[in-house]
Protein backbone atom coordinates (compact mmCIF):
# COMPACT_ATOMS: atom_id res chain seq x y z
CA UNK A 1 0.00 0.00 0.00
CA UNK A 2 2.65 2.51 1.12
CA UNK A 3 6.40 2.10 0.84
CA UNK A 4 9.03 4.65 1.82
CA UNK A 5 12.59 3.98 0.66
CA UNK A 6 15.49 5.98 2.07
CA UNK A 7 13.39 9.13 2.26
CA UNK A 8 15.18 12.31 3.24
CA UNK A 9 13.86 15.81 3.71
CA UNK A 10 16.14 18.78 4.35
CA UNK A 11 15.21 22.31 5.29
CA UNK A 12 17.71 25.11 4.72
CA UNK A 13 18.94 26.70 7.94
CA UNK A 14 19.08 30.40 7.19
CA UNK A 15 21.86 31.34 9.63
CA UNK A 16 24.39 28.75 8.53
CA UNK A 17 23.22 27.97 5.01
CA UNK A 18 23.35 24.28 5.84
CA UNK A 19 20.53 21.79 5.60
CA UNK A 20 18.63 20.47 8.57
CA UNK A 21 17.70 16.89 7.80
CA UNK A 22 14.31 16.54 9.49
CA UNK A 23 13.87 13.11 7.93
CA UNK A 24 17.13 11.37 7.23
CA UNK A 25 16.96 8.04 5.47
CA UNK A 26 13.61 6.62 6.55
CA UNK A 27 12.32 3.38 5.04
CA UNK A 28 9.21 1.43 5.96
CA UNK A 29 6.23 -0.30 4.43
CA UNK A 30 2.58 -0.28 5.38
CA UNK A 31 0.33 -3.11 4.23
CA UNK A 32 -3.24 -2.48 3.14
CA UNK A 33 -5.51 -2.50 6.19
CA UNK A 34 -2.63 -2.16 8.60
CA UNK A 35 -2.11 0.51 11.27
CA UNK A 36 1.46 1.71 11.60
CA UNK A 37 2.22 3.90 14.58
CA UNK A 38 5.15 6.33 14.46
CA UNK A 39 6.30 7.57 17.85
CA UNK A 40 9.09 9.87 18.97
CA UNK A 41 9.85 13.13 20.74
CA UNK A 42 8.96 16.52 19.27
CA UNK A 43 11.39 17.34 16.51
CA UNK A 44 12.18 13.74 15.61
CA UNK A 45 10.71 14.15 12.12
CA UNK A 46 7.49 12.24 12.57
CA UNK A 47 5.23 15.11 11.52
CA UNK A 48 7.49 15.86 8.56
CA UNK A 49 7.13 12.22 7.55
CA UNK A 50 3.35 12.67 7.66
CA UNK A 51 3.57 15.77 5.47
CA UNK A 52 5.77 13.92 2.97
CA UNK A 53 3.24 11.11 2.62
CA UNK A 54 0.39 13.52 1.76
CA UNK A 55 2.78 15.74 -0.19
CA UNK A 56 2.35 18.92 1.83
CA UNK A 57 6.13 18.79 1.51
CA UNK A 58 8.11 17.08 -1.21
CA UNK A 59 10.94 14.79 -0.15
CA UNK A 60 14.50 15.86 -0.99
CA UNK A 61 15.48 12.36 -2.05
CA UNK A 62 14.35 8.76 -1.80
CA UNK A 63 11.11 7.30 -2.98
CA UNK A 64 7.56 7.15 -1.66
CA UNK A 65 5.30 4.64 -3.37
CA UNK A 66 1.60 4.84 -2.62
CA UNK A 67 -0.81 2.40 -4.18
CA UNK A 68 1.74 1.72 -6.92
CA UNK A 69 2.47 5.38 -7.75
CA UNK A 70 5.58 7.43 -7.02
CA UNK A 71 5.15 10.69 -5.10
CA UNK A 72 8.61 12.16 -4.82
CA UNK A 73 9.39 14.84 -7.40
CA UNK A 74 5.96 14.58 -9.08
CA UNK A 75 4.34 17.92 -9.97
CA UNK A 76 1.40 19.07 -7.82
CA UNK A 77 -0.79 19.08 -10.92
CA UNK A 78 -0.37 15.33 -11.38
CA UNK A 79 -1.37 14.49 -7.83
CA UNK A 80 -5.15 14.41 -8.16
CA UNK A 81 -5.08 10.67 -7.51
CA UNK A 82 -3.13 11.21 -4.29
CA UNK A 83 -5.81 13.54 -2.92
CA UNK A 84 -8.36 10.78 -3.41
CA UNK A 85 -6.08 8.07 -2.02
CA UNK A 86 -4.43 9.55 1.06
CA UNK A 87 -5.80 12.10 3.51
CA UNK A 88 -4.40 13.81 6.57
CA UNK A 89 -6.07 14.39 9.93
CA UNK A 90 -4.50 17.32 11.72
CA UNK A 91 -3.26 17.66 15.27
CA UNK A 92 -5.09 20.82 16.29
CA UNK A 93 -8.84 20.48 15.73
CA UNK A 94 -9.24 24.17 16.60
CA UNK A 95 -7.08 25.28 13.66
CA UNK A 96 -7.96 22.70 11.05
CA UNK A 97 -11.46 23.97 10.25
CA UNK A 98 -12.20 27.26 8.52
CA UNK A 99 -13.99 29.31 11.23
CA UNK A 100 -16.32 30.85 8.65
CA UNK A 101 -17.73 27.65 7.20
CA UNK A 102 -20.54 25.64 8.72
CA UNK A 103 -19.72 21.99 9.29
CA UNK A 104 -22.10 20.85 6.55
CA UNK A 105 -20.68 23.32 4.03
CA UNK A 106 -17.12 22.31 4.90
CA UNK A 107 -17.88 18.65 4.19
CA UNK A 108 -20.02 19.40 1.12
CA UNK A 109 -17.18 21.45 -0.34
CA UNK A 110 -14.96 18.36 -0.40
CA UNK A 111 -17.71 16.34 -2.08
CA UNK A 112 -18.10 19.03 -4.74
CA UNK A 113 -14.41 19.44 -5.46
CA UNK A 114 -14.03 15.70 -5.96
CA UNK A 115 -17.43 15.32 -7.61
CA UNK A 116 -18.35 12.54 -5.26
CA UNK A 117 -22.07 13.37 -5.28
CA UNK A 118 -24.65 15.37 -7.22
CA UNK A 119 -25.58 18.67 -5.66
CA UNK A 120 -28.82 18.86 -3.75
CA UNK A 121 -30.40 15.99 -1.91
CA UNK A 122 -27.70 13.42 -2.66
CA UNK A 123 -25.08 15.80 -1.30
CA UNK A 124 -27.05 16.52 1.87
CA UNK A 125 -27.64 12.83 2.42
CA UNK A 126 -23.95 12.06 2.01
CA UNK A 127 -22.99 14.85 4.45
CA UNK A 128 -25.38 13.40 7.01
CA UNK A 129 -24.07 9.91 6.32
CA UNK A 130 -20.48 11.07 6.87
CA UNK A 131 -21.46 12.83 10.08
CA UNK A 132 -23.15 9.64 11.23
CA UNK A 133 -20.04 7.66 10.35
CA UNK A 134 -17.98 9.73 12.80
CA UNK A 135 -20.69 9.62 15.44
CA UNK A 136 -22.24 13.07 15.00
CA UNK A 137 -25.95 13.73 14.47
CA UNK A 138 -27.21 15.41 11.30
CA UNK A 139 -27.96 18.73 13.03
CA UNK A 140 -24.22 19.34 13.42
CA UNK A 141 -24.26 20.25 9.71
CA UNK A 142 -25.65 23.69 10.51
CA UNK A 143 -23.16 24.44 13.31
CA UNK A 144 -20.05 26.58 13.13
CA UNK A 145 -16.71 25.18 14.34
CA UNK A 146 -16.59 27.55 17.30
CA UNK A 147 -19.75 25.96 18.66
CA UNK A 148 -18.08 22.53 18.79
CA UNK A 149 -15.86 20.86 21.37
CA UNK A 150 -12.38 19.68 20.47
CA UNK A 151 -13.49 16.07 20.12
CA UNK A 152 -16.44 17.07 17.92
CA UNK A 153 -14.16 19.15 15.74
CA UNK A 154 -11.73 16.28 15.37
CA UNK A 155 -14.65 14.10 14.28
CA UNK A 156 -15.56 16.71 11.65
CA UNK A 157 -11.92 16.73 10.53
CA UNK A 158 -12.07 12.97 10.10
CA UNK A 159 -15.41 13.21 8.27
CA UNK A 160 -13.93 15.71 5.81
CA UNK A 161 -10.96 13.46 5.18
CA UNK A 162 -13.32 10.51 4.63
CA UNK A 163 -15.45 12.52 2.19
CA UNK A 164 -12.93 11.86 -0.61
CA UNK A 165 -13.20 8.11 0.15
CA UNK A 166 -9.47 7.63 0.76
CA UNK A 167 -7.67 4.33 1.29
CA UNK A 168 -4.96 5.69 3.57
CA UNK A 169 -5.45 8.06 6.49
CA UNK A 170 -2.39 9.77 7.92
CA UNK A 171 -3.18 10.92 11.46
CA UNK A 172 -0.74 13.54 12.71
CA UNK A 173 -1.07 13.47 16.51
CA UNK A 174 -4.85 13.56 16.28
CA UNK A 175 -5.28 13.03 20.02
CA UNK A 176 -2.71 15.29 21.61
CA UNK A 177 -5.00 18.34 21.76
CA UNK A 178 -7.86 16.37 23.32
CA UNK A 179 -8.89 15.40 26.85
CA UNK A 180 -8.01 11.87 27.90
CA UNK A 181 -11.64 10.71 27.95
CA UNK A 182 -12.17 12.11 24.47
CA UNK A 183 -8.92 10.50 23.26
CA UNK A 184 -10.32 7.07 24.03
CA UNK A 185 -13.52 7.86 22.10
CA UNK A 186 -11.54 8.91 19.04
CA UNK A 187 -9.34 5.79 19.25
CA UNK A 188 -12.47 3.64 19.31
CA UNK A 189 -13.91 5.60 16.41
CA UNK A 190 -10.72 5.04 14.40
CA UNK A 191 -10.80 1.32 15.14
CA UNK A 192 -14.42 1.08 14.01
CA UNK A 193 -13.77 3.10 10.83
CA UNK A 194 -10.90 0.84 9.88
CA UNK A 195 -13.11 -2.23 10.10
CA UNK A 196 -16.09 -0.64 8.38
CA UNK A 197 -14.21 1.10 5.56
CA UNK A 198 -11.13 -1.10 5.24
CA UNK A 199 -8.79 1.86 5.83
CA UNK A 200 -5.05 1.87 6.31
CA UNK A 201 -3.62 4.24 8.93
CA UNK A 202 -0.30 5.87 9.60
CA UNK A 203 -0.79 7.06 13.16
CA UNK A 204 1.68 9.61 14.46
CA UNK A 205 1.98 10.20 18.18
CA UNK A 206 4.37 11.03 20.97
CA UNK A 207 2.42 8.80 23.33
CA UNK A 208 3.56 5.21 23.22
CA UNK A 209 0.77 4.26 25.63
CA UNK A 210 -1.97 5.40 23.24
CA UNK A 211 -0.29 3.93 20.17
CA UNK A 212 -0.23 0.38 21.55
CA UNK A 213 -4.02 0.35 21.84
CA UNK A 214 -4.47 1.04 18.15
CA UNK A 215 -1.50 -0.01 16.08
CA UNK A 216 -0.48 -3.28 14.45
CA UNK A 217 3.11 -2.19 14.07
CA UNK A 218 5.10 0.60 15.69
CA UNK A 219 8.07 2.58 14.39
CA UNK A 220 10.16 4.62 16.82
CA UNK A 221 11.90 7.69 15.42
CA UNK A 222 14.83 9.61 16.84
CA UNK A 223 16.38 12.66 15.13
CA UNK A 224 15.01 11.90 11.70
CA UNK A 225 15.75 8.18 11.70
CA UNK A 226 13.88 5.03 12.61
CA UNK A 227 15.63 3.30 15.52
CA UNK A 228 13.20 0.44 16.01
CA UNK A 229 10.28 -0.93 14.05
CA UNK A 230 8.22 -4.05 14.56
CA UNK A 231 4.92 -5.60 15.64
CA UNK A 232 3.28 -3.65 18.47
CA UNK A 233 3.57 -6.52 20.93
CA UNK A 234 7.33 -6.57 20.54
CA UNK A 235 8.02 -2.86 20.36
CA UNK A 236 5.58 -2.12 23.16
CA UNK A 237 6.33 -5.01 25.50
CA UNK A 238 9.75 -6.32 24.50
CA UNK A 239 11.51 -3.22 23.25
CA UNK A 240 15.16 -3.75 22.34
CA UNK A 241 16.48 -0.30 21.52
CA UNK A 242 17.56 1.66 24.62
CA UNK A 243 15.65 4.70 23.37
CA UNK A 244 12.40 2.76 23.05
CA UNK A 245 12.95 1.36 26.52
CA UNK A 246 13.44 4.87 27.85
CA UNK A 247 10.20 5.97 26.17
CA UNK A 248 8.42 3.10 27.90
CA UNK A 249 9.82 4.16 31.22
CA UNK A 250 8.33 7.59 30.62
CA UNK A 251 4.77 6.23 30.25
CA UNK A 252 3.19 6.47 33.72
CA UNK A 253 1.64 3.31 35.11
CA UNK A 254 -2.03 3.41 36.07
CA UNK A 255 -1.32 1.93 39.52
CA UNK A 256 0.19 4.64 41.76
CA UNK A 257 1.94 2.16 44.06
CA UNK A 258 3.50 0.33 41.17
CA UNK A 259 4.44 3.67 39.63
CA UNK A 260 6.11 4.79 42.87
CA UNK A 261 8.07 1.58 43.25
CA UNK A 262 9.24 1.56 39.65
CA UNK A 263 12.83 2.26 38.91
CA UNK A 264 12.87 5.64 37.21
CA UNK A 265 15.01 5.79 34.10
CA UNK A 266 14.43 9.08 32.33
CA UNK A 267 16.37 9.77 29.14
CA UNK A 268 19.29 11.88 30.36
CA UNK A 269 20.36 15.02 28.59
CA UNK A 270 18.72 17.14 25.92
CA UNK A 271 17.80 16.30 22.36
CA UNK A 272 20.90 17.23 20.30
CA UNK A 273 20.63 20.03 17.74
CA UNK A 274 19.00 18.34 14.72
CA UNK A 275 20.90 20.73 12.40
CA UNK A 276 24.13 19.28 13.74
CA UNK A 277 23.47 15.66 14.76
CA UNK A 278 26.16 13.75 16.65
CA UNK A 279 28.37 11.42 14.61
CA UNK A 280 27.84 7.67 14.76
CA UNK A 281 24.64 6.57 16.46
CA UNK A 282 22.57 9.70 17.01
CA UNK A 283 21.40 8.45 20.39
CA UNK A 284 24.86 7.79 21.84
CA UNK A 285 24.97 11.15 23.68
CA UNK A 286 22.07 10.04 25.88
CA UNK A 287 22.41 6.25 25.71
CA UNK A 288 23.29 4.18 28.80
CA UNK A 289 24.80 1.44 26.62
CA UNK A 290 26.97 3.67 24.42
CA UNK A 291 30.38 2.26 23.42
CA UNK A 292 33.17 3.48 21.18
CA UNK A 293 31.62 1.97 18.09
CA UNK A 294 28.43 3.95 18.72
CA UNK A 295 30.36 7.22 18.73
CA UNK A 296 31.96 6.26 15.42
CA UNK A 297 29.54 4.31 13.26
CA UNK A 298 25.91 4.92 12.45
CA UNK A 299 24.13 1.64 13.26
CA UNK A 300 21.98 0.15 10.47
CA UNK A 301 18.53 -1.30 11.06
CA UNK A 302 19.05 -5.06 11.48
CA UNK A 303 16.42 -7.76 11.82
CA UNK A 304 16.54 -9.21 15.34
CA UNK A 305 13.15 -10.92 15.52
CA UNK A 306 10.07 -11.69 13.49
CA UNK A 307 9.62 -8.56 11.41
CA UNK A 308 11.40 -6.68 14.19
CA UNK A 309 14.23 -4.29 13.18
CA UNK A 310 16.51 -2.39 15.54
CA UNK A 311 19.30 0.11 14.87
CA UNK A 312 21.73 -0.45 17.74
CA UNK A 313 25.27 -1.90 17.75
CA UNK A 314 25.11 -3.19 21.31
CA UNK A 315 21.71 -4.84 21.12
CA UNK A 316 22.57 -6.41 17.77
CA UNK A 317 25.74 -7.92 19.20
CA UNK A 318 23.80 -9.35 22.14
CA UNK A 319 21.58 -11.03 19.57
CA UNK A 320 24.60 -12.41 17.74
CA UNK A 321 24.42 -10.04 14.78
CA UNK A 322 27.55 -8.15 13.87
CA UNK A 323 26.81 -4.63 12.60
CA UNK A 324 30.42 -3.90 11.61
CA UNK A 325 30.23 -5.62 8.23
CA UNK A 326 27.08 -3.71 7.42
CA UNK A 327 28.43 -0.29 8.33
CA UNK A 328 31.81 -0.92 6.70
CA UNK A 329 30.10 -1.72 3.42
CA UNK A 330 27.88 1.32 3.85
CA UNK A 331 24.31 0.27 4.37
CA UNK A 332 22.25 1.71 1.53
CA UNK A 333 19.63 3.11 3.87
CA UNK A 334 22.02 4.61 6.36
CA UNK A 335 24.58 7.00 4.92
CA UNK A 336 27.03 7.11 7.79
CA UNK A 337 29.71 9.44 6.52
CA UNK A 338 28.82 13.12 7.00
CA UNK A 339 31.01 14.13 4.06
CA UNK A 340 29.01 11.82 1.85
CA UNK A 341 25.87 13.78 2.63
CA UNK A 342 27.40 17.06 1.57
CA UNK A 343 27.61 15.72 -1.95
CA UNK A 344 23.84 15.30 -2.14
CA UNK A 345 22.35 18.64 -1.25
Amino acid at each position, binding site marked *: MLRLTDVRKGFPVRSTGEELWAVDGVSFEVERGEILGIVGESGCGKSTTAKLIVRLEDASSGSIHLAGNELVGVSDRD*LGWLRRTAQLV*FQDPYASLNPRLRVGAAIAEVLRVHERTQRGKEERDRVNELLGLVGLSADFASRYPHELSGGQRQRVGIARALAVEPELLVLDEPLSALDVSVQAEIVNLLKRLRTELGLTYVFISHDLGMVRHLCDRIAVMYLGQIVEIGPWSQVADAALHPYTQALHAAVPLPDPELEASRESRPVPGELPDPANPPPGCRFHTRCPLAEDVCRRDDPPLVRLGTDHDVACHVVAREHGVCTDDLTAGGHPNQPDDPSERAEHP
Partner: protein
Amino acid sequence: MSDIAQASSAPVGAVPSRRPRLTRLWQTKSGLAGTIIVSVAIILAVLAALGLTPYGPTAQDPTVRFQSPTAAYPLGTDQFGRDVLSRIMSGLVSSLLVAVSSVAIAASIGTLVGLVAGFFGEWIDRTIMRINDVFFAFPAILLALAIVSALGSGWRNTALAIGIVFIPLFVRVARGPVLALREVDYIQAARVLGFSRSRILLRHLLPNLGSAVIVQVALALSWAIITESSLSFLGLGTQPPMPSLGLMVSDGRNLVGQGAWLLIAPSAAIVIVVVGLNLLGDGLRDVLDPKDDR
Protein backbone atom coordinates in the same frame (compact mmCIF):
# COMPACT_ATOMS: atom_id res chain seq x y z
CA MET B 1 -19.95 41.24 6.60
CA SER B 2 -20.43 37.56 7.00
CA ASP B 3 -19.71 37.79 10.70
CA ILE B 4 -22.88 39.59 11.47
CA ALA B 5 -24.86 36.96 9.68
CA GLN B 6 -22.80 34.30 11.38
CA ALA B 7 -23.48 35.57 14.86
CA SER B 8 -27.17 36.24 14.42
CA SER B 9 -28.02 33.04 12.58
CA ALA B 10 -26.27 30.79 15.09
CA PRO B 11 -28.59 28.76 17.31
CA VAL B 12 -29.84 30.74 20.28
CA GLY B 13 -27.70 30.28 23.37
CA ALA B 14 -24.84 28.61 21.55
CA VAL B 15 -22.61 31.68 21.62
CA PRO B 16 -23.73 33.96 24.43
CA SER B 17 -20.56 36.05 24.23
CA ARG B 18 -21.04 37.02 20.61
CA ARG B 19 -23.00 40.18 19.95
CA PRO B 20 -23.65 41.53 16.48
CA ARG B 21 -20.56 43.46 15.64
CA LEU B 22 -22.20 46.76 14.71
CA THR B 23 -23.72 46.99 18.18
CA ARG B 24 -20.29 46.49 19.67
CA LEU B 25 -18.93 49.21 17.36
CA TRP B 26 -21.35 51.71 18.88
CA GLN B 27 -20.25 50.81 22.36
CA THR B 28 -16.77 52.18 21.75
CA LYS B 29 -16.48 55.97 22.03
CA SER B 30 -14.53 56.43 18.82
CA GLY B 31 -16.75 54.00 16.95
CA LEU B 32 -19.90 55.84 18.03
CA ALA B 33 -18.49 59.31 17.29
CA GLY B 34 -17.11 58.17 13.94
CA THR B 35 -20.39 56.55 12.95
CA ILE B 36 -22.38 59.70 13.82
CA ILE B 37 -20.04 62.10 11.98
CA VAL B 38 -19.79 59.92 8.88
CA SER B 39 -23.56 59.32 8.84
CA VAL B 40 -24.27 63.06 9.04
CA ALA B 41 -21.80 63.72 6.20
CA ILE B 42 -23.42 61.03 4.08
CA ILE B 43 -26.93 62.32 4.82
CA LEU B 44 -25.92 65.88 3.85
CA ALA B 45 -24.30 64.60 0.67
CA VAL B 46 -27.33 62.53 -0.25
CA LEU B 47 -29.62 65.52 0.32
CA ALA B 48 -27.38 67.60 -1.91
CA ALA B 49 -27.32 64.93 -4.57
CA LEU B 50 -31.13 64.91 -4.52
CA GLY B 51 -31.12 68.70 -5.02
CA LEU B 52 -32.37 69.33 -1.48
CA THR B 53 -29.88 72.07 -0.53
CA PRO B 54 -31.23 75.28 1.07
CA TYR B 55 -30.17 77.24 -2.03
CA GLY B 56 -28.84 76.15 -5.40
CA PRO B 57 -25.12 75.46 -4.97
CA THR B 58 -24.34 77.55 -8.03
CA ALA B 59 -27.21 80.04 -7.70
CA GLN B 60 -25.79 83.58 -7.53
CA ASP B 61 -27.48 86.46 -5.71
CA PRO B 62 -25.48 89.72 -5.99
CA THR B 63 -27.59 91.34 -3.27
CA VAL B 64 -26.18 89.10 -0.56
CA ARG B 65 -22.43 89.01 -1.33
CA PHE B 66 -20.05 88.35 1.58
CA GLN B 67 -22.78 87.80 4.12
CA SER B 68 -21.60 86.74 7.58
CA PRO B 69 -23.33 83.66 8.93
CA THR B 70 -26.98 84.48 9.68
CA ALA B 71 -30.16 82.52 10.22
CA ALA B 72 -30.89 82.67 6.49
CA TYR B 73 -27.32 81.72 5.54
CA PRO B 74 -25.96 79.57 8.41
CA LEU B 75 -22.44 79.59 6.97
CA GLY B 76 -22.60 82.93 5.14
CA THR B 77 -22.28 83.64 1.42
CA ASP B 78 -19.34 84.05 -0.95
CA GLN B 79 -18.26 86.72 -3.42
CA PHE B 80 -21.11 85.84 -5.82
CA GLY B 81 -23.72 85.64 -3.10
CA ARG B 82 -23.83 81.81 -3.17
CA ASP B 83 -24.83 79.99 0.00
CA VAL B 84 -21.71 78.42 1.59
CA LEU B 85 -23.65 75.65 3.37
CA SER B 86 -25.29 74.55 0.11
CA ARG B 87 -21.91 74.57 -1.60
CA ILE B 88 -20.30 72.55 1.17
CA MET B 89 -23.10 69.98 0.94
CA SER B 90 -22.56 69.71 -2.82
CA GLY B 91 -18.80 69.66 -2.29
CA LEU B 92 -19.25 66.67 0.02
CA VAL B 93 -20.94 64.85 -2.84
CA SER B 94 -17.93 65.10 -5.12
CA SER B 95 -15.47 64.47 -2.26
CA LEU B 96 -17.27 61.32 -1.17
CA LEU B 97 -17.86 60.20 -4.73
CA VAL B 98 -14.15 60.47 -5.56
CA ALA B 99 -13.11 58.95 -2.23
CA VAL B 100 -15.47 55.97 -2.48
CA SER B 101 -14.64 55.18 -6.11
CA SER B 102 -10.90 55.55 -5.60
CA VAL B 103 -10.88 53.36 -2.49
CA ALA B 104 -13.07 50.81 -4.27
CA ILE B 105 -10.46 50.62 -7.04
CA ALA B 106 -7.54 50.49 -4.61
CA ALA B 107 -9.12 47.97 -2.24
CA SER B 108 -10.25 45.50 -4.89
CA ILE B 109 -7.05 45.52 -6.93
CA GLY B 110 -4.69 45.91 -3.96
CA THR B 111 -6.31 43.12 -1.93
CA LEU B 112 -6.17 40.70 -4.84
CA VAL B 113 -2.55 41.54 -5.61
CA GLY B 114 -1.57 41.19 -1.93
CA LEU B 115 -3.44 37.89 -1.75
CA VAL B 116 -1.53 36.53 -4.74
CA ALA B 117 1.82 37.82 -3.42
CA GLY B 118 1.33 36.30 0.02
CA PHE B 119 -0.07 33.00 -1.21
CA PHE B 120 2.42 32.18 -3.94
CA GLY B 121 5.43 33.65 -2.16
CA GLU B 122 8.96 33.27 -3.51
CA TRP B 123 9.75 35.27 -6.68
CA ILE B 124 6.14 36.30 -7.29
CA ASP B 125 6.01 37.82 -3.83
CA ARG B 126 9.41 39.47 -4.15
CA THR B 127 8.60 41.00 -7.55
CA ILE B 128 5.23 42.35 -6.44
CA MET B 129 6.57 43.76 -3.20
CA ARG B 130 9.52 45.50 -4.90
CA ILE B 131 7.16 47.16 -7.39
CA ASN B 132 4.99 48.05 -4.43
CA ASP B 133 7.95 49.67 -2.70
CA VAL B 134 8.61 51.79 -5.78
CA PHE B 135 5.02 53.07 -5.64
CA PHE B 136 5.36 53.65 -1.90
CA ALA B 137 8.52 55.70 -2.41
CA PHE B 138 6.58 58.46 -4.21
CA PRO B 139 4.71 60.93 -2.02
CA ALA B 140 1.04 60.12 -2.65
CA ILE B 141 0.13 63.61 -3.77
CA LEU B 142 3.03 63.77 -6.22
CA LEU B 143 2.10 60.49 -7.84
CA ALA B 144 -1.56 61.53 -8.01
CA LEU B 145 -0.54 64.83 -9.57
CA ALA B 146 1.51 63.04 -12.21
CA ILE B 147 -1.32 60.64 -13.06
CA VAL B 148 -3.93 63.43 -13.23
CA SER B 149 -1.63 65.50 -15.45
CA ALA B 150 -1.28 62.53 -17.77
CA LEU B 151 -4.99 61.62 -17.81
CA GLY B 152 -6.50 65.10 -17.61
CA SER B 153 -8.66 66.51 -14.82
CA GLY B 154 -12.25 65.66 -13.92
CA TRP B 155 -13.64 63.63 -11.06
CA ARG B 156 -13.31 60.25 -12.80
CA ASN B 157 -9.62 60.72 -13.53
CA THR B 158 -9.08 62.07 -10.01
CA ALA B 159 -10.71 58.95 -8.59
CA LEU B 160 -8.62 56.71 -10.85
CA ALA B 161 -5.41 58.53 -9.90
CA ILE B 162 -6.06 58.31 -6.16
CA GLY B 163 -7.13 54.70 -6.60
CA ILE B 164 -3.81 53.81 -8.25
CA VAL B 165 -1.87 55.68 -5.58
CA PHE B 166 -3.58 53.74 -2.79
CA ILE B 167 -3.20 50.26 -4.30
CA PRO B 168 0.12 49.57 -2.49
CA LEU B 169 -1.53 50.22 0.89
CA PHE B 170 -3.97 47.40 0.32
CA VAL B 171 -1.31 45.11 -1.11
CA ARG B 172 0.57 45.43 2.19
CA VAL B 173 -2.54 45.06 4.32
CA ALA B 174 -3.73 41.92 2.53
CA ARG B 175 -0.34 40.24 2.18
CA GLY B 176 0.51 40.17 5.89
CA PRO B 177 -2.46 38.08 7.07
CA VAL B 178 -2.13 35.81 4.03
CA LEU B 179 1.45 34.97 5.00
CA ALA B 180 0.20 33.94 8.43
CA LEU B 181 -2.94 32.18 7.19
CA ARG B 182 -1.05 30.17 4.57
CA GLU B 183 0.50 28.06 7.31
CA VAL B 184 -2.75 27.66 9.27
CA ASP B 185 -4.01 24.08 9.43
CA TYR B 186 -7.28 24.68 7.61
CA ILE B 187 -5.46 26.12 4.60
CA GLN B 188 -3.04 23.17 4.69
CA ALA B 189 -6.06 20.90 4.98
CA ALA B 190 -7.55 22.51 1.89
CA ARG B 191 -4.36 21.69 0.01
CA VAL B 192 -4.36 18.08 1.17
CA LEU B 193 -8.02 17.81 0.18
CA GLY B 194 -6.98 18.76 -3.34
CA PHE B 195 -8.74 22.14 -3.53
CA SER B 196 -7.58 24.29 -6.42
CA ARG B 197 -5.46 27.34 -5.75
CA SER B 198 -8.18 29.73 -6.86
CA ARG B 199 -10.65 28.05 -4.50
CA ILE B 200 -8.23 28.33 -1.58
CA LEU B 201 -7.51 31.97 -2.44
CA LEU B 202 -11.05 33.16 -2.97
CA ARG B 203 -13.11 30.92 -0.69
CA HIS B 204 -10.76 30.34 2.23
CA LEU B 205 -8.23 33.16 2.35
CA LEU B 206 -10.13 36.20 1.06
CA PRO B 207 -13.05 36.02 3.55
CA ASN B 208 -10.59 35.83 6.42
CA LEU B 209 -8.91 39.08 5.34
CA GLY B 210 -12.16 40.97 5.81
CA SER B 211 -11.43 42.74 9.06
CA ALA B 212 -7.97 44.00 8.13
CA VAL B 213 -9.22 45.31 4.78
CA ILE B 214 -12.35 46.92 6.24
CA VAL B 215 -10.31 48.93 8.74
CA GLN B 216 -7.97 50.00 5.98
CA VAL B 217 -10.92 51.06 3.82
CA ALA B 218 -12.14 53.48 6.49
CA LEU B 219 -8.69 55.00 6.89
CA ALA B 220 -8.03 55.13 3.13
CA LEU B 221 -11.34 56.96 2.62
CA SER B 222 -10.13 59.75 4.88
CA TRP B 223 -6.79 59.98 3.07
CA ALA B 224 -8.60 59.95 -0.26
CA ILE B 225 -10.70 62.93 0.83
CA ILE B 226 -7.56 64.83 1.82
CA THR B 227 -5.88 63.94 -1.49
CA GLU B 228 -8.96 64.88 -3.52
CA SER B 229 -9.21 68.23 -1.71
CA SER B 230 -5.51 68.86 -2.27
CA LEU B 231 -5.80 68.12 -5.97
CA SER B 232 -8.85 70.36 -6.28
CA PHE B 233 -7.06 73.05 -4.30
CA LEU B 234 -4.28 72.89 -6.88
CA GLY B 235 -6.85 73.08 -9.69
CA LEU B 236 -6.29 69.50 -10.87
CA GLY B 237 -9.28 67.84 -9.25
CA THR B 238 -12.95 68.69 -9.56
CA GLN B 239 -13.41 71.56 -11.98
CA PRO B 240 -15.57 74.67 -11.39
CA PRO B 241 -18.45 75.34 -11.40
CA MET B 242 -18.95 71.90 -9.79
CA PRO B 243 -18.51 72.65 -6.09
CA SER B 244 -15.65 70.99 -4.29
CA LEU B 245 -14.28 71.42 -0.78
CA GLY B 246 -10.72 71.81 -2.04
CA LEU B 247 -11.75 74.48 -4.55
CA MET B 248 -13.67 76.33 -1.83
CA VAL B 249 -10.61 76.37 0.41
CA SER B 250 -8.58 77.67 -2.53
CA ASP B 251 -11.10 80.46 -3.22
CA GLY B 252 -11.56 81.20 0.48
CA ARG B 253 -7.84 81.67 0.91
CA ASN B 254 -7.91 84.66 -1.48
CA LEU B 255 -11.01 86.14 0.12
CA VAL B 256 -10.09 85.61 3.76
CA GLY B 257 -9.97 89.40 4.26
CA GLN B 258 -13.61 89.82 3.18
CA GLY B 259 -14.94 86.81 5.07
CA ALA B 260 -12.97 84.42 7.24
CA TRP B 261 -15.88 81.94 7.16
CA LEU B 262 -15.20 81.38 3.45
CA LEU B 263 -11.94 79.72 4.41
CA ILE B 264 -12.90 78.30 7.79
CA ALA B 265 -16.17 76.59 6.79
CA PRO B 266 -14.88 74.32 3.98
CA SER B 267 -11.64 73.61 5.85
CA ALA B 268 -13.59 72.62 8.93
CA ALA B 269 -15.83 70.42 6.81
CA ILE B 270 -12.79 68.53 5.48
CA VAL B 271 -11.29 68.15 8.94
CA ILE B 272 -14.54 66.93 10.49
CA VAL B 273 -15.18 64.30 7.81
CA VAL B 274 -11.55 63.10 7.92
CA VAL B 275 -11.56 62.88 11.72
CA GLY B 276 -14.90 61.09 11.58
CA LEU B 277 -13.57 58.46 9.18
CA ASN B 278 -10.45 57.99 11.31
CA LEU B 279 -12.54 57.51 14.45
CA LEU B 280 -14.70 55.01 12.58
CA GLY B 281 -11.57 53.18 11.45
CA ASP B 282 -10.27 53.03 15.01
CA GLY B 283 -13.59 51.76 16.26
CA LEU B 284 -13.73 49.10 13.55
CA ARG B 285 -10.21 48.00 14.38
CA ASP B 286 -11.14 47.52 18.03
CA VAL B 287 -14.26 45.58 17.15
CA LEU B 288 -12.79 43.46 14.38
CA ASP B 289 -9.61 42.63 16.28
CA PRO B 290 -8.41 39.32 14.84
CA LYS B 291 -7.74 38.10 18.35
CA ASP B 292 -11.43 37.42 18.89
CA ASP B 293 -11.98 36.46 15.31
CA ARG B 294 -12.77 32.84 16.05
